[in-house]
């Protein structure tokens, strides 16, 4: 969940209790993807796998469509969402680009140039 409160820098997600409750089942699903057998099963029928873990309709849609931003909005923790991205062969820098509206290459270049300096 994005927050503008005193707890969080602007435009930054704080994975707090409410977010963790919202994303609990989806993050549990991501946790299983560390196991090769689970990855195979997931890839064979992603919708059924989501249903088995009790994801909401919106969460299922986000997972099936690889809508990384929506996963965060729906309670995904980056440490868990990343396990899905890893399965897809994507990097943390790729996700960084998605979340900031850049290509992976531009994101990497921005990080090498010192990263964000406005906060």
């Amino acid at each position, binding site marked *: 969940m994005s927050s503008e409160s005193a707890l969080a820098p602007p435009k*930054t997600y*704080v994975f707090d209790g409410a977010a963790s409750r919202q994303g609990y089942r989806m993050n549990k699903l991501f946790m299983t993807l560390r196991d090769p057998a689970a990855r195979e099963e997931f890839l064979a029928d992603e919708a059924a796998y989501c249903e088995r873990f009790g994801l909401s309709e919106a969460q299922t849609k986000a997972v099936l469509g690889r809508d990384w931003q929506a996963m965060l909005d729906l309670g995904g*923790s980056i*440490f868990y969402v990343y396990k899905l991205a890893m399965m897809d062969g994507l990097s943390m820098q790729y996700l*960084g680009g998605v*979340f*900031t509206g*850049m290509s992976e290459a531009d994101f990497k270049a921005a990080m090498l140039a010192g990263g*964000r300096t406005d906060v």
Partner: protein
Amino acid sequence: MSEVIWGLATSHVPSIGAAMDRGMTQEPVWKPLFDGYRPAREWLAQHKPDVAVLVYNDHANGIDLDIVPTFGIGTADRYSVADEGFGRRPVPDVVGDPDLSLHLLQNLMDEGFDLTVFQELNVDHGFTVPLSIWTPEPGEAWPCPVVPLLVNVIQYPQPTAARCYALGQALGRALASYEAPARSASWAPAACPTSSPGRAPGSSTRRSTTCSSTRSRTTRRSSPRSPARTSSARPAPRASS
């Protein structure tokens, strides 16, 4: 009594471990980092500890979201290296030191820290990357047993900085009171830069999480005859910024 002889703080981003595992440390993007580690590594190699305490955080590999402890301590005699989803790192499993673990547990509990006790724990890159930075070529085993001390950084609320500082101070006292005549060392907290998701297009974020690392070295001797023994801790070499 035991003595802290060194402390080390370092980033633990998984790509550091991957760069080492894939032989990329001399590539232009990585070389400056590993060059920076060199003086510390040389110094550390000359000061081998008998046991270490590593304060770190798990990243959804040893701990799931069902049960999220604030502070945890491992009391096992062995910790497996976790498979984080890309195969386990080609590094040895970690040998623990249950006696020291239980001593620390008792003393930290007596000081009012509400520790969670792990008898089984898979350690992830938050643990193995600092070990690799210390010992790039461990061979069959790490140089000494290691006790894991866990700090939650995954789910808010995390412990306050004041609470972490107090824990570190209590850890120092607990190490000092360890009964075997010994020397020990401690890893100071380290910032772990993580690219953190923000939704504003065009802005990238960089955020520090409290990936603390405290390492303790305890040399057990039946008599205090260590020539290198000093009465105060040596300053930790600066391994990286």
